[in-house]
């Protein structure tokens, strides 16, 4: 006994840490993320994130593209809610060219953006379920996401990388099928969402698993420039839709759900509540659209919005505009704007500098994922490895948005 005491006292036992390479391609990380973890048994002591595996140089490409051709780049940022990115970009350009957008178009945009927010949050929340071992919810809610994607498909022809809308409005008016499908979604989605919540929100096993997992305080979250549901889960009621309303959000009545501890359960609940708010916003928007003239689907911005094909053949001005737009020779004013929208993950900002040329002089995307993912090592430190996986999926880090 004395010998053991002697060893312990004189020679401190050296702690041995193991290094674990999590990623870049790992089925549990839902994307290309690499983290080199320093582990003490199953406890994460430190982590180093490596990003950039799917960097596609969008900011550089955008400096070589006319304004209309940048839209397809934006929907590859956060591909879970690409319409928000598309419309955010259109609104940025409209701010620069000082375009007046009719109310009906603004409401249609709100419907699209809220639908994609629901689709985004459905993926995130159901994947939290998958990572805790509850596959069922995921399989059930994906049919509602599918129905939302069918609406996008009906409006613009694409599902995931939507390229929805144009600078000035939408490329064509919404068909009666869209409205029918929208009503259908609004009928089945609340039921499905309720069912999903019954599975998880008050489930003792789920609560025990996720509460206290990957928490972050409001102060830390602010200092790390968190935005969106992750910031709100920490208890800060910041939402771009309320702070700097765009597209007539100020006319809508909705609540901003906030959490208290910023852990995975709070993030889950904030997203869950936001989906209910989104459903209510869509209902309000549909009512508002009904009061507007039904044939308006774009603003009067002839320099940017493609004219009717009929007019192109018969009118001189329309032909000239058509040619200029297709060749990307629109007259863009000199200036610099920053426009932010509330994306699925937070404040999605576009900083655009125009020197009057056919391409932006500089376009920077403020990508919420990229900014808040840097707090990830701090959030998982001291927790278990399985909590690290859960924290990542509850932060909803989207590889496309992370790497741009």
């Amino acid at each position, binding site marked *: 006994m004395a010998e053991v005491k002697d060893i312990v006292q004189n020679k401190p036992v050296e702690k041995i840490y193991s290094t674990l390479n999590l990623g870049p391609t790992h089925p549990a990380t839902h994307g290309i993320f690499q983290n080199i973890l320093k582990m003490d048994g199953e406890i994460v002591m430190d982590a180093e994130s490596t*990003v*950039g595996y799917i*960097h596609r*140089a969008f*900011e*550089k*490409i955008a*400096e*070589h593209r006319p304004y209309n051709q940048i839209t397809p780049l934006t929907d590859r940022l956060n591909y879970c809610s690409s319409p928000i990115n598309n419309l955010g970009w259109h609104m940025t350009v409209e*701010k*620069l060219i000082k375009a007046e957008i009719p109310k009906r178009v603004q409401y249609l945009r709100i419907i699209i953006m809220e639908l994609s927010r629901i689709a985004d949050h459905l993926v995130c929340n159901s994947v939290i379920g998958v990572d805790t071992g509850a596959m069922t919810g995921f399989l059930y809610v994906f049919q509602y996401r599918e129905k939302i994607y069918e609406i996008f498909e009906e409006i613009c022809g694409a599902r995931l990388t939507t390229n929805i809308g144009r600078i000035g409005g939408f490329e064509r008016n919404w068909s009666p099928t869209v409205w029918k499908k929208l009503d259908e979604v609004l009928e089945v989605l609340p039921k499905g969402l309720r069912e999903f919540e019954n599975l998880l929100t008050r489930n003792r096993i789920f609560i025990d698993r996720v509460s206290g997992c990957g928490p972050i305080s409001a102060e830390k979250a*602010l*200092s*790390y*420039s*968190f935005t969106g549901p992750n910031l709100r889960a920490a208890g*800060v009621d*910041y939402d771009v839709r309320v*702070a*700097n309303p765009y597209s007539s959000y100020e006319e809508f009545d909705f609540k901003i759900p906030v959490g208290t501890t910023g852990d995975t359960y709070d993030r889950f609940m904030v997203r869950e509540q936001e989906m209910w708010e989104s459903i209510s916003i869509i209902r309000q928007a549909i009512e508002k659209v009904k009061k507007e003239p039904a044939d308006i689907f774009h603003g009067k911005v002839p320099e940017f919005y493609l004219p009717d094909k009929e007019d192109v053949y018969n009118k001189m001005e329309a032909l000239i505009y058509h040619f200029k737009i297709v*060749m*990307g*020779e629109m007259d863009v004013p000199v*200036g*610099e*704007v*920053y426009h*932010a929208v509330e994306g699925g993950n937070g*404040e999605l*900002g576009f*900083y655009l*500098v125009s020197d009057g040329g*056919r391409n932006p*002089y*500089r376009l*920077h995307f*403020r990508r919420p994922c*990229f*900014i808040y*993912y*840097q*707090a990830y090592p701090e959030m998982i430190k001291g927790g278990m490895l399985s909590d690290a996986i859960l924290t990542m999926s509850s932060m909803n880090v989207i590889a496309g948005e992370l*790497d*741009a």
Partner: protein
Amino acid sequence: MADVLNTLNEKLKTKFGSDILSAEQLFDFPVFTVKKEKILEIIKTLKEEEGFNFLTDLTGTHYPDNKGQELGVIYHLHDMPGNRRIRLKTYASLADPKVLSLTGLFPGANWMERETFDFYGVLFTGHPNLKRILNMDEMNYFPMRREYPMEDAKRDDKDNSMFGR
């Protein structure tokens, strides 16, 4: 909006005088151009005295014709309770691309500064871990600078001369 510009301009002018090079209103943003030596001090003042406690964005830009001030660093700050947003700009030369780092004030500036370094080569003094973030470590140039063409200039299979490219 213009009130924000005027009140802030007055306060900054009394404290920093000629270090504030210009103040203007661009769309909905008051924009201040400041000397790069003072950027940290000014942002610290704004954070502690004016409540701009949220760094929305930090990015770079490159103006090759702006001799001596080629590289720009652009900061977007947000005062959430007062809902005021401002933009600060500072310029550094290619020969001496050193700008003070904000990581001490905002931990969130860490990756944004790494990204700016990665693409424009702005050296942020005081940054704890200034290395490339999105590009590979072996890269020996800064790809977002204007002199780097997007496509290989030696390509001869494309003729875009008609299209202004």
